[in-house]
């Protein structure tokens, strides 16, 4: 409170002084301002009064002059207009006089006005009417007289007076202006003086104020620095009563307080130093104790970890390794080894591999059960580090189960450091616990093994398997199920009903049926087996058919769930379907010829008819019966082949020879020209001659059948890249592109009316394919509708080609209808690098020779056709460019020298002749 008051005194002191000065300044300036304003106001009023009087006097003077001027006008013109104007002038005069008299007039002025008024009233009432009367009478003399009277004097006086007034007024106005300026100057000067005085006062006041504040503060500052630097401050108590005074006294108090405090602290500090020393000693003691505790803690932690290993490690190798590590850390062994009694696993530290093997393979010789320690002299290899350690302490412990059956062996030793009794007790305890752990390990392995066995069994089943418990959770399923249904791989945990059911039904087409099936089988136990068939949703058109079987599972006669087995029966299903389709097709194929046979037979039996018709009917019956037989034979053949019952007698088959025989046996109608183009250097394949013959015959027959308009049937034999290739080409109706892929399937004849007319069992090509497949070969067709077809058969050659001597450029045409001879000729020519073209129709042969692509011709004279060999030769020689073509005659007939000469025959060979002669003939030429 006191301080507040004191503070107030200083603040209020300066406040009041400042306020007083401000008030004085405002007052003085207000008084000066007011005075000046008042004076200016008076001068302004005076100025306007003088101006008004001057105006009025001037008006009066003007009005008088006007009256007299108008009066003279009246005198001069005597017109009523002038009179009118005169009366107006008189009115103006009256107004001016009235105005003037209302002014503040001096005595002289008042007298003058009253004189003027009396004169004018006299003039108006008397002089003017008289003068007007005189004028009217024309008495201008009287008028002149009248005007001589004092009339004008008064007027003139007045006029001059007005002039006077004007000049006086102006003088007065000047005076007033001067006074006004003087007043203003005075006010300004006095204001300036006063302001200067005030500024002076202010400066004085501020100086005093600064003086009274700054110096004590400076003193305090010096004192504060003194305290800071540890000197005793020189400061006196101030008698000032204001804030600075209180600050100073506070400062002094504080300084005193600080000094006292410092002394106290000093004393305390010394005391503390003494205490600190005592504490240091205690700390050292504690550190030592802590070390001990940490050691104990480390051991405890080791034991703890060991316990963990003992109770929870399930991998035997990890268990042994961990045990050895911990035991070693606990007891600082030099060598340590722990192994299973069955020697299936071990772990060791500091033991050489050699020693380990020695121990593992030695029989266990433990005369005592439990644990024992043996002291012995160190062997040299154990003591090379330190001579002083002359003893080694071996510790051996057998780990057995409760019944005494050995589970493992623990061996360890220390060089020169015996085992304390306490340590032995601990190790004994650990060994006992190890035995429990070993039992657990073995049990775990056994369980794991049997579990894995079960899972292996489940996972290696082709059937999908799932076990659902009473709560409808899927507790077990195998990989096959996941694979079949395209689910994630097997998880161990249970899967909720909603989840697995949704997963399964989302993959099938028969969602509702399968859902109902599951719901009916997981609810409760049921007898026997239930099953349902379903199909999987697939990306493509492929069909996946499954059967799922459900059976109730019981444990101790109590229902525990349901087991489901999903079986992929797609193959069986397809086989079933194919079988039924086949049966249906076969039945149709069989019924058609059967209908004919039965039908015509019945007609023959029931109807009267001509013998020709009867014969035709019987022929038809015969033909259809044969067709039926073929069909049945083909069908049985195929069945036998497909079921694997067909026996193949594999041997070396010479394909060109085989082909030659087939060509001889097959009857080719004369509408077709058969050509065999043989470039086959190496023709031996491994195969069943009879079956291959069947294939070739079939292809040849097809070629004839499917070229009803005739044309060439060309068989090409080639051996390329380790394969023998047989191509049977016709110029017939061909096969539409889309049918090519179906061609080798059963009963898939090209289905159009043209091919339908041709007939057949529809099994021939399927049989061919079956046979070629069995020979590891390939059969395919290149064809174009209307252009003919080329069936290719490729079979692996038994031996690779030695050299490619047959290039196909040197072609020899052979006309020889005896197949064995033709073969002999071909063999010889091919061995010399010629390719051989056999023709079986002389006309077609002559035609081809015409294109000059041959290097020579071999002709048999007895061709069995209309055309003899000589005719052919004659036609060749008639062809342009072929008159020098080498021609060799191969004949059983004797030589006809005349014809040989005529046709320039290169060589005439009489059968039998050595084949070399033939090739020699072409080589020579």
């Amino acid at each position, binding site marked *: 409170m006191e301080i507040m008051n004191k503070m107030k005194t200083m603040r209020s002191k300066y406040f009041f002084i400042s306020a007083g000065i401000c008030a004085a300044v405002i007052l003085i300036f207000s008084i000066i301002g007011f005075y000046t304003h008042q004076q200016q106001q008076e001068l302004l009023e005076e100025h306007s009064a003088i101006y008004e009087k001057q105006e009025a006097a001037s008006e009066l003077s003007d009005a008088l002059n006007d009256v007299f001027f108008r009066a003279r006008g009246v005198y001069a013109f005597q017109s009523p207009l002038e009179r009118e104007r005169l009366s107006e002038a008189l009115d103006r005069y009256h107004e001016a006089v009235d105005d003037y008299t209302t002014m503040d007039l001096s005595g002289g002025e008042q007298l003058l006005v009253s004189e003027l008024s009396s004169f004018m009233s006299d003039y108006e009432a008397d002089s003017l009417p008289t003068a007007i009367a005189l004028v009217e009478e024309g008495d201008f003399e009287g008028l002149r007289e009248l005007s001589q009277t004092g009339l004008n004097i008064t007027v003139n006086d007045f006029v001059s007076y007005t002039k006077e007034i004007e000049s006086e007024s102006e003088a007065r106005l000047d005076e007033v202006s001067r006074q006004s300026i003087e007043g203003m100057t005075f006010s300004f000067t006095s204001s300036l003086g006063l302001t200067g005085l005030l500024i002076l006062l202010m400066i004085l006041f501020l100086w005093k104020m600064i003086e009274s504040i700054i110096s004590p503060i400076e003193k305090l500052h010096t004192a504060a620095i003194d305290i800071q630097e540890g000197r005793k401050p020189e400061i006196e108590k101030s008698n000032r009563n204001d804030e600075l005074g209180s600050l100073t006294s506070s400062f002094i108090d504080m300084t005193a307080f600080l000094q006292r405090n410092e002394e106290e602290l000093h004393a305390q500090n010394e005391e503390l130093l003494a205490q600190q020393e005592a504490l240091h000693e205690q700390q050292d003691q504690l550190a030592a104790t802590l070390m001990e505790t940490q050691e104990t803690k480390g051991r405890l932690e080791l034991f703890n970890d060991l316990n963990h290993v003992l109770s929870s490690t399930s991998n035997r190798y990890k268990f042994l390794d961990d045990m050895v590590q911990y035991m070693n850390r606990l007891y600082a062994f030099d060598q340590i080894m722990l192994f299973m009694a069955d020697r299936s696993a071990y772990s060791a530290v500091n033991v050489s591999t050699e020693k380990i093997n020695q121990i593992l393979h030695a029989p266990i010789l433990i005369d005592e059960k439990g644990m024992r320690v043996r002291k012995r002299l160190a062997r040299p290899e154990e003591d090379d580090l330190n001579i002083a350690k002359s003893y080694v302490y071996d510790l051996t412990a057998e780990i057995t189960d409760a019944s005494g059956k050995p589970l493992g062996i623990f061996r360890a030793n220390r060089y020169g450091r015996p085992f304390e009794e306490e340590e032995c007790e601990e190790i004994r305890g650990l060994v006992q616990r190890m035995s429990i752990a070993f039992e657990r390990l073995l049990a775990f392995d056994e369980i794991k093994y049997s579990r894995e066995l079960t899972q292996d069994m489940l996972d290696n089943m082709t059937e999908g398997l799932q076990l659902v418990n009473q709560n409808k959770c899927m507790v077990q399923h195998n990989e096959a199920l996941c694979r079949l249904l395209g689910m994630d791989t097997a998880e161990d945990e249970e899967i909720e009903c909603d989840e697995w059911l949704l997963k399964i039904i989302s993959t099938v087409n028969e969602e509702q049926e399968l859902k109902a099936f599951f719901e009916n089988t997981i609810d409760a136990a049921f007898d026997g087996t239930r099953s349902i068939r379903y199909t999987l949703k697939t990306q493509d058109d492929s069909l996946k058919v499954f059967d799922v079987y459900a059976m109730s599972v019981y444990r101790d006669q109590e229902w525990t769930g349901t087991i489901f087995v999903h079986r992929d029966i797609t193959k069986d299903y397809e086989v079933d379907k194919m079988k039924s389709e086949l049966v*249906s097709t076969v*039945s*149709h194929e069989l*019924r*058609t010829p*059967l*209908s*004919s*046979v*039965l*039908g*015509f037979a*019945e*007609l023959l039996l*029931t109807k009267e008819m001509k013998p020709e018709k009867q014969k035709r009917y019987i022929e*038809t019956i015969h033909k*259809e019966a044969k067709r039926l037989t073929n069909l049945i034979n083909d069908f049985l053949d195929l069945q036998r082949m497909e079921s694997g019952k067909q026996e193949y007698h594999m041997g070396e088959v010479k394909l060109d020879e085989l082909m030659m025989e087939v060509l001889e046996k097959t009857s080719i109608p004369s509408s077709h020209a058969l050509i065999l183009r043989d470039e086959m250097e190496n023709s031996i394949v491994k195969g069943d001659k009879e079956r291959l013959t069947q294939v070739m015959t079939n292809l040849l027959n097809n070629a004839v059948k499917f070229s009803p308009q005739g044309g060439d049937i060309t068989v090409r034999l080639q051996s390329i890249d380790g394969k023998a290739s047989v191509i049977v080409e016709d110029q017939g109706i061909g096969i539409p592109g889309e049918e090519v892929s179906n061609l080798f399937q059963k009963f898939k004849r090209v*289905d*159009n*009316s043209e091919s*339908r*007319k041709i007939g057949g069992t529809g099994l021939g090509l399927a049989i061919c394919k079956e046979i070629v497949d069995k020979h590891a070969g390939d059969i395919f067709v290149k064809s174009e509708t209307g252009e003919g077809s080329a069936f290719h058969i490729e079979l692996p050659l038994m031996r690779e080609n030695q050299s490619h001597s047959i290039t196909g450029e040197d072609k020899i045409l052979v006309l020889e209808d005896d197949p064995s001879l033709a073969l002999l000729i071909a063999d010889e020519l091919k061995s010399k690098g010629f390719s051989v073209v056999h023709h079986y129709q002389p006309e077609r042969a002559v035609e081809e020779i015409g294109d000059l692509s041959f290097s020579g011709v071999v002709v048999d004279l007895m061709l069995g056709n209309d055309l003899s060999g000589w005719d052919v030769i004659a036609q060749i020689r008639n062809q342009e460019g072929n008159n020098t073509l080498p021609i060799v005659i191969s004949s059983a007939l004797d030589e006809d020298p005349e014809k040989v000469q005529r046709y320039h025959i290169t060589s005439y060979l009489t059968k039998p002749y050595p084949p070399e002669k033939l090739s020699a003939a072409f080589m020579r030429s």
Partner: protein
Amino acid sequence: MSKLLIADDEEILRMLIEDTLEDLEVEIDTAVDGDEAYRKLSSGEYQIVLLDYMMPGMSGREVLEKLDEGLKTNLKILMLTAKTQKEDQEALKSAGADYFMAKPFSPVELSDFVAELLNGDHE
């Protein structure tokens, strides 16, 4: 005279049926496949058709399914087929087949049956 169409892809069978029915008062025409059968039947000139089931191109059933319903009511359709299974027959019936005769058939039976059809005994 009534008109009858034999639709069968087997020439011998067509011949057999033709010969079987030659004594009947009926004008006989033939079709070699489903397409021809459909084309000819669509004309509406025929009262009876002996239709084979298995034919190249359109099968007998496809011919029936494609054929105008109005035409079928005025046409007696006899299926000559190896398909003797019940479900096949049901399908054919729903397509419009009236009578069935299994292959192989007896010409005498066929002749009698067609004669009855001509006399309207099966109406």
